């Protein structure tokens, strides 16, 4: 057929969209080229950071294990989840501020500038010490903002859990707390390290980011939570089968595994 017709959806939309893209945000365009070169997040090299890197996850795990008994054996797991949430949040906050480079700092910066700025990394770090912030952006501000973002993301995670089949009319607090734990554990460090950098988030969201502790934690937490739903239907009538204990266990287990693997053997690798 020699006759070619221009009216197809893909072509017309492609045109419009292309125009849109050009119009709306040249920044996006720039970011897209960056996206290919997204770099893994290097933890701070300070001795404090290096020891906190191992100590804090161990602490969170300890908190989880200590609370596990009351989580399972109390008739209602919600209060336990509620009381342990601030503890976990505090530990994650400490982890972020001690170990992670704050969003916009050299450690979390990528490609474009990293080669030129790398030599300076050491100097700056020694200057700022273990205090909190990084170079440039203030660590405390970033931490507060990340907490706010984490709060915002929780309702969305809650909706996602509902969509996966979590109870809609009942167990609202349980599901919401489970979403909050997921947010604090997995999303908080990402917010701290990436801020609202859309390119970085696009890479993370499409699972194209390189593995590091934060991204590994995300993959692990999400996959763990997904697998955590598997034992729910079994008719074993165990206490630990009640909603959302298994999912919570999956999130924590997956998060630790993902974080450890992401920080070590998988570091820098991509899907």
């Amino acid at each position, binding site marked *: *057929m020699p006759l070619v017709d221009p009216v197809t959806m893909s072509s017309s939309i492609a045109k419009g969209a292309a125009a849109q893209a050009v119009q709306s945000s040249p920044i996006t365009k720039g970011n897209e080229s960056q996206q290919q070169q997204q770099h893994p997040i290097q933890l701070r090299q300070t001795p404090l950071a290096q020891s906190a890197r191992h100590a804090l996850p161990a602490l969170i795990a300890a908190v989880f294990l200590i609370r596990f008994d009351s989580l399972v054996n109390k008739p209602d797991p919600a209060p336990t989840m509620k009381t342990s949430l601030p503890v976990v949040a505090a530990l994650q906050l400490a982890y972020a501020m001690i170990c992670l480079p704050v969003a916009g700092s050299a450690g979390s910066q990528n490609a474009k500038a990293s080669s030129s700025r790398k030599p300076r990394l050491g100097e700056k770090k020694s200057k700022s010490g273990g205090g909190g912030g990084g170079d440039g952006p203030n660590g405390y501000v970033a931490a507060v903002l990340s907490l706010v973002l984490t709060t915002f993301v929780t309702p969305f995670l809650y909706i996602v859990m509902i*969509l996966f089949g979590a109870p809609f009319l009942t167990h609202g607090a349980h599901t919401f707390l489970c979403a909050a734990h997921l947010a604090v554990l997995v999303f908080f460090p990402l917010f701290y390290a990436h801020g609202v950098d859309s390119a970085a988030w696009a890479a993370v969201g499409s699972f194209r980011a390189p593995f590091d502790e934060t991204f590994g934690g995300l993959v692990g937490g999400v996959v763990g939570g997904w697998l955590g739903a598997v034992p729910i239907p079994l008719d074993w009538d165990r206490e630990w089968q009640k909603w959302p204990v298994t999912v919570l266990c999956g999130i924590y287990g997956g998060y630790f595994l993902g974080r450890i693997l992401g920080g070590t053997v998988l570091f820098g690798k991509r899907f």
Partner: protein
Amino acid sequence: MPPPQPVPTKAPPAPDYKTVAAQFATAKRAKEVEDATKAHEDIQQEQERSSLQDRQREALEARRKASYEKRWLWNVAFWVWMLTIHVVGLAYFTSGFLLTRLMLDEKSSCDAPPTTGNEILPAWKGKGTVDGGCWHPKTFERAVVVVIDALRYDFTIPVDDDAKFHNAFPFMYDTALRSPNNSFLRPFIADPPTATLQRLKGLTTGTLPTFVDVGTSFAGTAIEEDNLLMQLRDAGKRIVHLGDDTWDALFPGYFEADMSKSYDSFNVWDLHTVDNGVIEHIFPLMNRKNDWDLLIAHCLGVDHAGHRYGPDHGNMTAKLAQMDTFIRDLAVTIDDKTVLIVMGDHGMDSKGDHGGESDDEVEAALWMYSPNSVFGRTKSEFATPPATAKIRPVNQIDLVPTLALLLGIPIPYNNLGRPIEEAFAGAAGTAWDNLAAAESTAAAGIKRYQASYFAAQGIKESNTTPDSPAEFWAKAEELLSTTHSKRGGAKDKWAAVYSAFADYQQETLARCKSLWAQFDIKNMALGIAVMTAGVFTLLVYVTKGAEDDSGAVDDPELDLAEKSLEMQGVKADAEIISARNMDKTFVGAALLGALPIFGGGVLQSFISGVGDWYRGAGFAALTSTATVLVTMYESKETLVNLIPKTVWGWMAVVFTVSQSVGFASNSYTIWEDSILLFFIATFGFATALAAIRLPNLADRYLSIYHSILFVLLGRLASFSKLCREEQMPYCRSTYYASATSSTSAPWQLAIPFVVFLVLPSIIKAYLVPSRSYEGLAPAWIGYVFRTGLFMAAAYWALDAADNGNWFPGLPANTLKTLSVYLAQTILGLALVAGTTAFVWAPPCVSILTAARQLGTAQVTVLGYGNAHGARYLLLPLNILAACFLLSKPMGGGALAIMMWQVLSLVEILDFNSLTFEAIGPVMLAVLGNFHFFKTGHQAVLSTIQWDSAFIPLFTIRYPWSPIVVALNTFGGQILAVATVPLLVLWKVSPQRKGLLVLLSRAYGLFLAYFAVEALATMAWAGHLRRHLMLYRVFCPRFMTAAAVLLVVDLFGIVIALAGARCNTMAIGEVFGWVE
């Protein structure tokens, strides 16, 4: 009213698309002529050349069309072969798995009691004759047996609540309480399957029904084993039957023709004809007691009320009240020599259905009455009928020895039941010798039967193990002889003898229940082997050549070059030819592999004269798949292809395999609907995240939008639930008005109206972006389809008005008549007119010719880019309209959501370039299964919505009624299989080549999901054949999977492949053949 006409699929009249083709050709010629003028060529010469080209082109098109038709036929032949393999595999497994029991021909006879010596009772007058009582002194001359179908035990006892099915039938309870010596009421436990035919077999032979009886259920074969009616008939007694005609099928020629009257059994719509007929005919007979010896009356109203409305409905109260009056009146007419027995043959579940083995389904009621004081209680606390069916239940088979001994006939040979205590305990409740005599006689009969059974099987009964029935027998015998020797001793010694024989009976029954049936492992294994080979072949078929995307040629230049080459007679690439003719090769190989063995089997059966000509089918299927696999291997198909290469491929594998593994667990089988929702959400979120990678911003957002929509709709549909008993208490049914009803709630009636308003516009919204809302689409989708939906909505409103009697002034049956004709019109519109329109329809395109500048013309074809998909969409919409009507309001809403989800799915696949991945067909299959649950079904027999047969019909009519029930039951899967071609055809322009190969692969992947599930459920059911939950969970799931596989096999060929052919023909006629 004639049933809907068969759907015409062939021989369409001169299609409408010819006009579009002419339009297109004219427009094209105008452009060519204009081009020619521009080139300053001699017009004359140009015209000559173009006419020559036209002729060449026509010849080429004709050749391509013929080749397409031939390849299509071979492709269909391949899928027919696959269907055959599935049928053979399922049939072999089923024949070995569905339990069979040896039928013994022995009959009990009056003069040969099973007892040997040690008589407990002194000789009575007429011993050994029917007149005096063959094996036990006779109590009654005649019996009236009233079967009230589905009379659950709690319907008959006082219950402290307001349920409509409680406290409406107090007569039997009151009588039993008031005069315990004249009557007793006890729970009456049915052995599953709780279908009437199996129950009647159990109630007359005293044996346990086996699953193979379900197979014969539809044929309704006569009982050939020894049974109560046979014993009575052989003793010259006269039997009269009124009511359910199942009895006629089981006992042909047994009944006194002039007094008996039978009625259609399955007309569940009709609550009153059977009962009124029974009541009308039974009372005259009560004045002619010397003309009959056994009177059987089988009422169906309660059962039908349950099926139609569920127990919690005013009609159930009315029905039970009617039964109360009936039994009250009947009891008055009973004389001293007659016993009246009223019983339910099974119960009903919370929605009024039955068939399975849940507690509510097996717990029926039994009431016996005589004006003579014959019934007693061995303990005073037994005088009050049990408060629940868990207390002092009687097995239904116990009726057989009880009635036989009461009437003085021999206990049927195969009986496993024991006499009911009340009937032999004497009015004072102390006749232990009588009880012991009755019990030992029945036990001796069981012992004799077991011995014959083991002998017939060629197995020696072991009597060494402790706690074996033989051990119990020895103990009872010993006790009997010691008690016997000191005859003058205390009378209550007989109580011990009685309980010793009762122990033996119970132990034997338990053994029989657990170990009775003989699975035919050989046939089961062969069935599994055939299915496995079939699945493996299917997988190799769908993965072959997945890499060389044969449909990718979308380049007009290349096509033009190829075409001109072909016109010059140059053959296309040999490899392409062989790839296209693969189906032919495979079918040839399949026949080559199958025929010798199958022919051998036929020949052998002919020579040996056994008549089982099909005996070679299993091995023929195996050799057939083997030769096909070898052929596939020869065409460079390797096992490596089976391993997925992308994350999407893995996702398809994980969804299919994890579910199949999960079928090994009853929990995962029970919660399948939630698991499917989980998969749907997983896929939707995965594609939403994947869409972030799309370079184009608009594509990205649209794709994310459709992904989220896909998940949201799935979650929305998940609110339509019909819980199975095992899901309790974690599940709330929403499909009907309440958990104890099978009618829709008033608010649910609004759902079809919402769908009528919204769905056509939604579909339009999916067609408009590709400019495909052209041609027939606006008229068909906007008006005809919408009208069909409106009429379906109106149907359900009428139905509710009829059920609820909203217009009491109307003459009877007005609404029912109206709604049936309305339903017939809808089905005619959707299936007959719809198919005709689909065959006829031009592509959904619009051709515009506009003069652009002076002397130049521009031809624009709106909707060209989605020409294939938009036109094909009309077919699934017709199927949807039919299923929408048949699925009840809630189910119709679910199916509408499913259609929406399918459209989103094809968009998602298109955006993310997943069209050729396995995940598309697998997700479609998941959707189909998901909406099977959302249309008010579960993988249990009792959720089959039999009443749907009466939506377009007044009575049962073959073959229409089963077809209607199938469309209701498998609506989700049928809609899914009808939309399989959309996966391949959506957003595909007429230039796309190799669509047949792509479609065949997509259909194969779709089928593979169901085939793997059928294989998995089959293997697990076979492996767990001694599992407690076999008949509750695993067996019904296997039967569902098997039925679904055959349905998608069949409908895939009839709808998907045939529809795609029509579509390709129409597109090819208009835009030229590219295949």
